[in-house]
């Protein structure tokens, strides 16, 4: 089962009418490295027009730029990162991050790792993992460019984190996923439901490992840039039933996730998850999980 109509029909059943989308380039200011007002003035002097992203802090869409914003002195000095707007949401959902031991389980190329480090003011420790050396090299370059000092990176599968013998306070699971058509123009030609199911199974394995290494009072933020329920609501419903976790309320951009998906009635806490359809941003799904405390 594949093809554009197949997937568009599924989105319809979830309550969204497919529309093509043109994404705006977004940046996030690394406030540990530069004053926001100073950087905005520097952009203006270079005739780069910015638009604040209303649902994020220290984040802007690039309205107009006479040259690539990925080649300015300010970029090379690590004053900002180029990071799609929806992708900036997950790291902001943790209750507090300073001095914590944090895991970024699928970290490369490192946009969210740098964002976590910025939110932590370079305190505590981030463990950043990826399974591909080439992608980890890109992450290392990103860390050096942004002057990150609190991150340890390992070439490691997120399903094997227990080998580190560390319990984590916060875990970011921006898991490998099927992606969406907003960031991949060939998405409908490329993807099948079998890909989605294969990714969903991998994501469940990563989720299960993450719960094992989470402190009892810790937090997991789970996110995908997939629009497919198998990788989102259905996986979180599975986690609530098999991993003794529950989805916690979050405040961020996006729609309340549905508790009735593809003919299945899901756990009521799924309504605490957020689904973002591609309009102003790419498609995204995000939620926060905590271990259930039994009375």
């Amino acid at each position: 089962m594949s093809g554009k109509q197949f997937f568009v029909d599924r989105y319809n059943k979830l309550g969204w009418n497919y529309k093509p989308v043109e994404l705006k380039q977004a940046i996030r200011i690394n406030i540990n490295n530069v004053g926001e007002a100073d950087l905005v003035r520097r952009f203006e002097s270079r005739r780069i027009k910015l638009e604040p992203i209303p649902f994020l802090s220290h984040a802007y869409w690039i309205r107009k730029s006479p040259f690539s914003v990925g080649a300015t002195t300010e970029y090379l000095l690590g004053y900002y990162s180029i990071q799609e707007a929806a992708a900036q949401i997950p790291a902001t959902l943790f209750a507090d991050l300073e001095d914590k031991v944090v895991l970024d389980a699928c970290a490369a190329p490192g946009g969210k790792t740098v964002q976590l480090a910025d939110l932590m003011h370079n305190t505590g420790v981030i463990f950043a993992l990826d399974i591909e050396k080439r992608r980890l090299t890109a992450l290392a370059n990103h860390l050096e460019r942004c002057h990150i000092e609190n991150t340890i990176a390992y070439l490691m599968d997120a399903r094997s984190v227990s080998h580190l013998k560390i319990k984590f306070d916060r875990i970011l699971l921006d898991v490998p996923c099927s992606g969406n058509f907003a960031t991949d123009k060939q998405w409908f030609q490329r993807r099948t439901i079998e890909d989605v199911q294969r990714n969903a199974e991998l994501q469940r394995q990563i989720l299960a490992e993450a719960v094992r290494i989470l402190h009892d009072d810790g937090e997991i933020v789970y996110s995908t840039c997939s629009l497919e329920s198998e990788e989102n609501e259905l996986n979180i419903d599975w986690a609530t039933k098999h991993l003794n976790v529950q989805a916690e309320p979050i405040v961020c951009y996006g729609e309340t996730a549905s508790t009735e998906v593809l003919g299945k009635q899901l756990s009521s806490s799924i309504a605490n998850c957020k689904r973002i359809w591609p309009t102003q941003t790419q498609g995204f799904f995000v939620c926060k999980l905590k271990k259930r405390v039994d009375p």
Partner: protein
Amino acid sequence: MELDETSIAKKGGRYFLLNPESKRLVSDDFFYAGAYLGKERRGVFFPSFILLAMIAERKEANKIIVDDKTEWLFIVGRDVFKRGILQVVGSRRKNAHTLVMNKRGECLGFGRILHNLEEGEAKPKVAVENVSDVGDFLRRERTIEH
């Protein structure tokens, strides 16, 4: 400049400075850790941009401050012409290494002085050879992509 040696980790010729929490938790098989200081190749140490920024904070560091045009040329890998240098701090001697800073005091990299930078000397075309500049991050990205 002194760093606490017990907080430095070495991995395959690369050096990293660890904060106490990272030092406590890191294991030997790490890929990257803490603040990257630089790498050693065939007995020569190449400082990272994090280390260069640390050195730039020190008063005794050799520095040249360059104008806007020279800043742009330098980060695309070009050498520094004498006419683009606004100020010299520290050594002006031939073969000395010097940080290259922009007008805002930001470290763009470093170079080697090719001719004495004494004022009044006959002006050579290239005064400071580019050894390393922050534009390297873009060049590395291209290498990874291909």
